[in-house]
């Protein structure tokens, strides 16, 4: 008899995934803290990867009744190289890796328990408890896919779609229904015939009845087994598959006062926003607008890397954003998000214009507009002007200040914190 060899390699993969997600669920508090620490350490650039995180080992040990340190115990070790019976030795026993006598019992469990989260698990925890504000138009969607679904039966169609069961069931029903009068009359005649044969054989009616029975049988036989009328076709219809979509406007000041480190901060913020939107919408477009004294729409590469000099007129970017929305992103079909990053420099008399532009032409069209100011100096006039918008448009407009890289995540969380409706 040869042995049975079973190849299980194709079998249920990820058998432990339930246990794994339960583990993560259970220690969510600790893991979230570790994730926040991890964010502070690394760039948003590699947010797309998983993350190796550690949580305190003592939190996750499973307790048992065990002996603690102390008392009296005798332990046998191998490799005696110098001891004789009766020797006294200092503790711990020199050189023994884990130490002797109970040290190994509490040696474990103090180190951090380190493991790697997958990208999805990481982002789940990362964006946990955040919500998109103003989901009014979230349901709006563009339709670019259709799905075919079954939708009952029809009486016309192509032969490949004939539904045999339905058709045969209908045919059987029809045969019974159409044949019913004949069957009733047949039963009557047969009873009559039997009575006549018993009571008065030789009655001429017998022959008449026999003839009628024969003709009835013939007519019943003539009912078609299947009729075009019986045919049923499986029906399939197209259903539109709406997919939610959003456009994200990234506005950034690239004037001389925005140095590389400030741009990096802005970039990280935008990336975070992009990742977040990506989890909420199936289809996302990003529009990059950079400005100094004039604004232009650029691609991502130019947006972050080219450098301009000169003054700053913020309103130019806002005007351009408005134009683009009107031209390309009808606000009835798109969820629109705007994020503006700047160091707060602006021509003094331009700032009131900006406020007006935002409140009059942009805020009515967008879901959310966030302004982040990357500066550690005193707020300047742009900030002061924008502050007035906070009161008039609560919930749609938000602004925060970022001083250093470490602030990005907390500020982001603050902007998108779940709010009670």
């Amino acid at each position, binding site marked *: 008899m040869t042995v049975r060899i079973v190849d299980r390699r194709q079998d249920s993969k990820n058998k432990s995934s339930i246990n*794994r997600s339960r583990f993560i669920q259970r220690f969510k508090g600790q893991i979230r803290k570790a994730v926040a620490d991890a964010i502070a350490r690394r760039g948003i650039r590699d947010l797309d990867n998983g993350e190796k995180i550690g949580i305190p080992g003592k939190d996750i040990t499973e*307790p048992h009744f065990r002996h*603690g340190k102390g*008392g009296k115990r005798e332990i046998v070790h191998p490799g005696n190289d110098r*001891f004789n*019976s009766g020797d006294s030795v200092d503790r711990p026993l020199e050189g023994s890796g884990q130490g002797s006598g109970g040290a190994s019992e509490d040696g474990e469990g103090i180190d951090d328990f380190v493991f790697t989260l997958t990208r999805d698990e990481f982002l789940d925890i990362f964006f946990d408890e955040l919500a998109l504000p103003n989901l009014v138009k979230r349901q709006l969607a563009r339709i670019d896919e259709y799905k075919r679904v079954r939708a009952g039966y029809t009486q016309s169609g192509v032969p490949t779609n004939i539904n045999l069961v339905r058709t045969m069931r209908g045919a059987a029903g029809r045969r019974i229904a159409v044949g019913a009068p004949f069957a009733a009359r047949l039963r009557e005649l047969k009873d009559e015939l039997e009575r006549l044969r018993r009571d008065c054989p030789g009655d001429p009616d017998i022959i008449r009845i026999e003839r009628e029975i024969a003709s009835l049988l013939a007519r019943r036989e003539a009912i078609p087994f299947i009729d075009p009328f019986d045919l049923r076709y499986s029906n399939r219809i197209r259903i539109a598959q709406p997919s939610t979509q959003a456009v994200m406007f990234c506005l950034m000041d690239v004037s001389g006062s925005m140095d590389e480190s400030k741009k990096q901060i802005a970039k990280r913020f935008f990336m975070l926003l992009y990742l977040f939107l990506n989890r909420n919408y199936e289809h996302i477009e990003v529009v990059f607008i950079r400005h100094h004294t004039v604004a232009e729409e650029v691609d991502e590469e130019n947006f972050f890397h080219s450098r301009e000099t000169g003054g700053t007129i913020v309103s130019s970017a806002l005007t351009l954003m408005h134009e683009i929305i009107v031209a390309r992103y009808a606000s009835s079909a798109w969820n629109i998000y705007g994020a503006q990053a700047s160091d707060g420099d602006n021509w003094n008399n331009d700032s009131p214009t900006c406020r007006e532009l935002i409140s009059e032409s942009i805020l009515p069209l967008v879901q959310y507009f966030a302004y982040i100011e990357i500066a550690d100096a005193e707020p300047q006039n742009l900030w002061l002007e924008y502050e007035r918008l906070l009161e008039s448009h609560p919930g749609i407009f938000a602004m925060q200040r970022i001083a250093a890289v470490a602030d990005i995540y907390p500020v982001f969380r603050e902007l998108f914190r779940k709010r009670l409706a």
Partner: protein
Amino acid sequence: MSKKRIRPIAEGSEWTVEAIERYDAEIGRVAKAYGLDCYRHQLEIITAEQMMDAYAAIGMPVYYHHWSFGKHFLETENRYKRGQMGLAYEIVINSDPCIAYLMEENTLTMQALVIAHAAYGHNSFFKGNHLFKQWTSADAIIDYLVFARNYIAQCEERHGFAAVEQLVDACHALSNLGVDRYKRSPHLSLDKETLRQKEREDYLQAQVNDLWRTLPRHTAAVAEEEERRFPAEPEENLLYFVEKNAPLLEPWQREIIRIIRKIGQYFYPQRQTQVMNEGWACFWHYTLINTLYDEGKLTDGFMMEFLQSHTNVVYQPPYNSKWYSGINPYALGFAMWRDIRRICEEPTDEDREWFPEFAGSDWRETFNFAMSNFKDESFVAQYLSPRLMREFRLFAILDDEANPKLRVDAIHDDMGYRAVRRALAEQYNLGSADPDIQVWNVDLRGDRSLTLRHFSHQRRPLGPETDRVLEHLAHLWGFTVRLETLMPSGDLRPVAECRSEKRNRPIS
């Protein structure tokens, strides 16, 4: 007469199903010639990831879900990915047919080693050792695990995932004190279990309700009961006691406790026979493969790879090495079995003096007797020879808290052999490794509190986790739980108390 050259079984290091079949046939032939009695076996080829799954579930192909298994999985995965550990080749399931796992990354040599080690070595041990015979039902375990997983999943649906998790946590915390050490467990089977489970549920509930009857009793009866302790005899199986007697548990909770208790019981023999079992498997893979080599069926390359991995497994670092973490059960077990064979085949005078009953006897018979009738503790006490103690250079250190220094109690010399052997055997005594804690009393007429008594051994105190375990127990019991220690001097000392009063709260 020159040795006949026979063609090697297979060449190269990549495995194929045919090559594995041929190896299995050859190893099986040799094993049979040595008279190894095994269950039928089945080889399963799996990926590294599946191997880690198996690790997390203590090697079982089906298991209920719990976060702690997720933790084990992550731990293993992490260490494996960092290259700190190779995945071992010893995972084998004590079932009939016995299932041995072959990992796809292994070379052909490793596959042959695993087959010899697991499918013949461990397998025959499972079939022959009295503890496994008595405690485990190889033909029914998989069925029972399926039943367990389905039942627990159902409970999660019905009673909520959090409630089940808390219950399972509590059971796991008590699992090392949830085994019967002396009685035999009844046979398990899926059909019977499912069928009887409902009956048991109703019956148990009725029992318990009777125990906590609140109807007024006759005063005479009360007076008589004042004298009586409940339970009448202390109970050392805490989970069993809770399952049968905890007043507020729902039937499904009792069933889950029972399931975890049963599974713990199933693994208990493995804890009791680690040295013997691993040593036995190592001895047999070593012997079987060497026999094949002597027959000329294995190439030298095969043997080099085989020996390298074999020596890695049975290496014992000395106490002052940085790799030292206690005695390696593979090393000790392998050396002991080899030594027993030597004593049978080439006994010295010393051996004849120490082991008159089997020195010079037929080694296969002696092996069978030793394998069938012992556990680690008694195996070491019975078979550890002076020669082996010298080879391992064993010495016993007495660590007494009362003394400022450690004392070397005995070493591998004429005066010390017996003491070292006794100390080592004691080390494998699970009875003294786990603290001795028993259910002592339930305050039936008062607050229904449960009192556990810890019988202190060698003045050893309980570890720092004790309070957390008591919380778990209090959760199960539903009322206050106390723990007291009986010192060797006879004093009773309260250790911990966990107050709980679940009566007025809805049971979560």
